[in-house]
């Protein structure tokens, strides 16, 4: 769906958690960015800087302590029409979060069954096609417990793709995958962006993946409690003045 303006807008978002006992622990504050249609936007940063927390806020699972999130032109908080937005975004969780009692095919078929009137034959064909796209055409009848971690991630991507959403969120899609599968996944993201003009927001800290797919990236830092860099990752790697950004891209110990 063509949308005027950005598909995702994050304005001045902050997140803190109350610690046991007294006080609050600030994760980040003053985080602002927007993503335009057809872009591959990467959220990166070291462990514990709040990448996954930020993604949870964007997809409507965690109200921010301050600030606002607009997805596909709708406010996620208070989010009166969040249900409508959720059928137009796809989310892949870090662990895959596949439903353990369903086969991979049934996992991918579930959103089709719930949100479309497609006949059974069409749902099966479509779910098989999505699993084929991520290289799991021969594993459709397996249960999540019977497949490897990498396969579970790919199956989760297939489920996120089920309704061909214009905006996809992937949390650490290539972590724990072998380099060949990981490169294949990067290519899939680029292909889907080109073919379907889908927008991707990817949380990752895999350098190779970031440089291969990202049009722009946002870097969070645990010590700075917020954004320390925003822009083209190649430009940041080659020309950032911030030593933390340089260290990240050059894989130097902090």
């Amino acid at each position: 769906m063509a949308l005027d303006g950005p598909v995702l807008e994050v304005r001045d978002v902050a997140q803190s958690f109350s610690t046991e006992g007294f006080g609050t622990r600030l994760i980040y504050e003053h985080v602002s960015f927007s993503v335009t249609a057809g872009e591959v936007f990467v959220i990166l940063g070291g462990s514990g800087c709040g990448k996954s927390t930020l993604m949870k806020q964007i997809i409507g699972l965690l109200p921010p302590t301050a600030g606002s999130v607009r997805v596909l032109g709708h406010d996620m908080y208070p989010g009166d029409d969040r249900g409508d937005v959720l059928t137009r975004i796809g989310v892949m969780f870090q662990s895959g979060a596949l439903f353990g009692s369903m086969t991979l095919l049934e996992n991918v078929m579930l959103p089709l069954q719930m949100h479309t009137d497609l006949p059974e034959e069409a749902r099966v064909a479509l779910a098989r096609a999505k699993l084929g796209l991520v290289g799991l055409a021969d594993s459709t009848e397996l249960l999540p417990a019977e497949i490897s971690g990498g396969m579970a991630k790919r199956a989760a991507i297939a489920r996120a793709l089920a309704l061909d959403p214009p905006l996809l969120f992937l949390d650490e899609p290539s972590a724990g995958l072998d380099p060949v599968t990981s490169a294949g996944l990067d290519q899939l993201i680029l292909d889907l962006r080109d073919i379907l003009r889908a927008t991707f927001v990817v949380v990752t800290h895999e350098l190779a993946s970031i440089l291969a797919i990202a049009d722009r990236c946002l870097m969070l830092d645990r010590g700075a409690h917020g954004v320390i860099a925003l822009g083209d990752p190649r430009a940041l790697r080659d020309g950032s003045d911030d030593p933390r950004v340089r260290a990240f891209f050059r894989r130097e110990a902090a």
Partner: protein
Amino acid sequence: MSATLSVSTEDGATVLRFTGRMDAAGIAGIWTQTMRAAAEPHEGALVADLAGVALCDTAGATLLLGAEARHGGPIGLRGQEAGLDTLLDRLRRAPPPPQPTPAPGWTFTSLARLGLRAAGGGIAYLGEVAVALAMAPSRRRMLRLSDLLRTADEAGVRAVPLILMLGFLIGLILAFQSAVPLQRFGAEIFVANLVSVSLLRELGPLLTAVILAGRTGSAFAAEIGTMKVNEEIAAIRTLGLDPMTMLVLPRLLAALLVMPALTLLMDASGIAGMSVVMQALGYSPDAIAIQIRQTVALGDLFGGLFKAMMFGAAVAAIGCRCGLAAGNGPRAVGQAATGAVVGGIVAMVLLDGVFAVLFYLLGW
């Protein structure tokens, strides 16, 4: 905007003309129509005209591939957007789904092998428990006292209110139900004998063990099953430690320790419940006490407590075994917990039968 389909013939070729949005929601209404149109015998080529299509994503592409499969040969495309050919290529590249292999039928041999394997697994487990018990003195470090005390607290102390309440109510109900028929013969006084003997010898240990199986056996299975799913058991082994000593023995010993205490409380509260009914029928506490003393010997009490210990050991051992034998995934944990409760209750009833025969032979 849903997609629409119209079929026409142009220069001998059948043209499927699509319009609108060919996404998952859009193609729902035209899927069956498209498949039917593609499956009909065509003299010339089959062409899909996509000039009027606003969007064609993987759902639309899957529809075109489905039509191609029904047609039995390639279909021509015209008016499509540039990306669609690439998408169709990508989808075509996926290998066909595997043919499901028929499950082997049950034969007497396969059933017998399965039964033997299950029995063998059970015997091997008992052997491992025995070895762990025998080796416990030399593996004192692995046998963590804190684990034993925590389990005893969860299985024992926290079950006390439930045991007291159920024991009291069961004593009350038993006494009331037996008082009604005995009253016809003027023998209500024997309600005390009946209830105290049945509680001390049978019902006390059995009911306590049922509660232990429901509360604790299932918890053991779920906890150890989750550890298995999270590969914690594998981690214990690779650290050079023994899961039997670290996980099973503390639970087994805790169950052995708490069962006699819980059973004693169950017996006492049951007799208290019975006393309430007896007093309501007009008997003094002294009369009730005399009746009980005349009927019940210490052997009845200790026999019951011994049985309770054995039931507790069986429930704990089966709970841990179900956890250790759990498969992968959250479903496996649920199955392990169910298996622990069912297995525990069946085992305790079987054991009770064995004890009944044994006590009879021993003249208790």
